[in-house]
């Protein structure tokens, strides 16, 4: 029997398969592996962001700064590479450290000053976007052979598809995320804090330290998403990734993680982001929706899946009563 703790994730998986099946049934082009590998490439930065966001939401917090962080890291990287002529590997390392540092600072404010994460990260959202403007207002291409080489990596798979570097990087980061969540002491502490903060403290979980680490990790993952986005577009743009925080939160929630914390899986967030991607692909394949119907369709589908998931979990819980 399926453990009841895994139900939401199975609900999400079912929904994803149903949607994908519908696409394959409806459109010929959908049957190629290309569509699937495109999903992996195109949603790579969103998935990476969502993996980091999962930890934050599991701990009962929220991080609104991720979208701005992606833009800021991209612009910073471009500045380091194109203006200061630093080698991309070093530039990426510096950018990641900056991302971790900013995340940790937000975590510190949240834990030491006891300000709600929603508000602290909202300020972070304004601040990082502002910092991006300060570095560079314009969109800049990153023309470095190393970056070009990375974005040219392509492992073909049968059926017209192929894995790009960023798709593979995303899959590695996803696996790392899953391992951190389920197989490290830090990961279990995150679940504990989200489940019951007071009890966790009494069980010996270092709340403040873990909180700082959680936001530092989210900072790292959104910085990684920023790097991936920069490689994805070979450029940097201070207005990039506006509103990605909401997409990431939606991905995490569709993936079955409770916003109240303590319950959920990193893999669910991957599925959540993929579901959003499939919906977009379906809308594009259809191609008949005008701008406002697109918005309505995205909202409506979001609603539909949340209700569907609720129904599946409700139905399954009913069948396995408590001991």
């Amino acid at each position, binding site marked *: 029997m399926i453990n009841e703790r895994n139900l939401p994730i199975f609900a999400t998986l079912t929904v994803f398969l149903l949607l994908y099946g519908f696409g394959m049934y409806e459109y010929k082009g959908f049957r190629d592996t290309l569509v699937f590998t495109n999903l992996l490439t195109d949603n790579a930065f969103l998935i990476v962001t969502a993996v980091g966001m999962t930890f934050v939401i599991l701990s009962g917090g929220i991080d609104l700064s991720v979208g701005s962080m992606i833009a800021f890291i991209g612009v910073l990287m471009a500045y380091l590479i194109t203006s200061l002529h630093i080698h991309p590997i070093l530039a990426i390392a510096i950018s990641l450290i900056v991302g971790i540092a900013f995340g940790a600072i937000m975590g510190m404010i949240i834990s030491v000053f006891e300000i709600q994460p929603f508000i602290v990260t909202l300020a972070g959202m304004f601040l990082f976007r502002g910092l991006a403007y300060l570095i560079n207002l314009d969109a800049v291409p990153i023309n470095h052979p190393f970056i070009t080489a990375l974005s040219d990596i392509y492992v073909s798979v049968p059926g017209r598809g192929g894995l790009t570097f960023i798709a593979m990087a995303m899959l590695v980061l996803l696996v790392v995320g899953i391992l951190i969540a389920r197989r490290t002491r830090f990961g279990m502490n995150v679940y504990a804090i989200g489940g019951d903060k007071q009890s966790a403290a009494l069980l010996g979980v270092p709340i403040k330290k873990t909180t700082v680490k959680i936001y530092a990790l989210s900072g790292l993952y959104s910085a990684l998403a920023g790097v991936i986005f920069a490689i994805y577009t070979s450029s940097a743009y201070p207005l990039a990734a506006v509103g990605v925080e909401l997409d990431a939160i939606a991905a995490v929630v569709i993936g079955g993680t*409770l*916003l109240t914390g303590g319950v959920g899986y990193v893999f669910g967030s991957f599925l959540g982001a993929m579901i959003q991607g499939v919906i977009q692909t379906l809308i594009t394949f259809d191609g008949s929706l005008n701008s406002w119907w697109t918005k309505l369709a995205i909202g409506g589908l979001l609603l539909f899946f949340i209700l569907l998931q609720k129904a599946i979990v409700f139905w399954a819980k009913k069948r396995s009563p408590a001991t």
Partner: protein
Amino acid sequence: MIDIRPPIKATNMKKHHALQHLLKRLQKQPKTLAPFVSLLLILSVTALITPGFLEIKFVNGHLYGSLIDILHRGTPTALVALGMAVVIGTRGIDLSVGAVIAISGAVTAVLTVNTDWPVWIVIACALGSGLVCGLWNGLLVSIFNIQPIVATLILMVAGRGIAQMITEGQIVTFHSTVLNAIGNEFFLAFPIRVWIVLGMIILTIVVMRKTSLGLFIEAVGANVRASRLVGIEARLLVLSAYMFSGFCAALSGIIIAADIRGADANNAGLWLELDAILAVVLAGASLAGGRIYLGLTIIGVLIIQTLTTAILTSGLPVQYNLVVKATIILAVLLIQSPTTRQWLAKRFQSKRGQNAKKEQNSTSSQNHGRADQ
């Protein structure tokens, strides 16, 4: 230990009740002072940077100056924040207010242009659209038990689509003397919209404090199970909180549309929800429900609007706007934080023990509320 109070004279009570209450609260909870202090600080620093910022002239029978602009420009945010405060009191959040603003503006514009209905009916329809949006959010939250942030995210995404559908993607401009007046004209030296919002604030505070709605909302936000067991219809209450928020957003949408005499479905009220939430939190409320402070929320709105107006008048290059705004807001938050207050209290205690105790009391009570979720 039992506190035996002298009998209270009813007549005296009534007259000075509001003032006494305020004074008592200030005495007990100095944290209510923090937003005022922050606002004054921002105002004085701006006045130093931009001379003439505090100047108010009397032109053509009305007041004119940056301070009036702050009131004038702050009205839409103030309305939205008012509704947001109530929703946050029920341990909710309403991300859809920006979209509701767009919908209500679209309804106002399209009805004004396409029908010859009296303006009052048009306004009623726009407000009605806000109530319907609120009802939708409320149903999702209270009946279907969807987490508020997700439930309202749906309308946040879809709402602008609805607004664009109504306006067919165009900015619909209109001409209506009444709406123009709401947008920009003055009454008794102040902009009419300031009077409207003032009326709305007073009405809300009176309804919340004179009836028991405020108590019920705070009770439901702080402990929904206990509230249900004493017979409070929590679902209905939560539903009405979202409807109120929708109503406030719709009114705000009418004002925004009237301001530019057109409905801009894409941009009207964009990201206003974030400012509103920020204002509620600057006022000292917790996003985890419970105590809300309506009056202070308006101070929070004024802090945010003062910042915006100050940046615009200061002649700062545009790319600095966000950094300055974010830094100042962070600074205000840090100053207001429980930790800072505790630290200040400790330093204060060594000098004058008595007052500091009270300070700490309020701090620990707040911490307790958080610890209990």
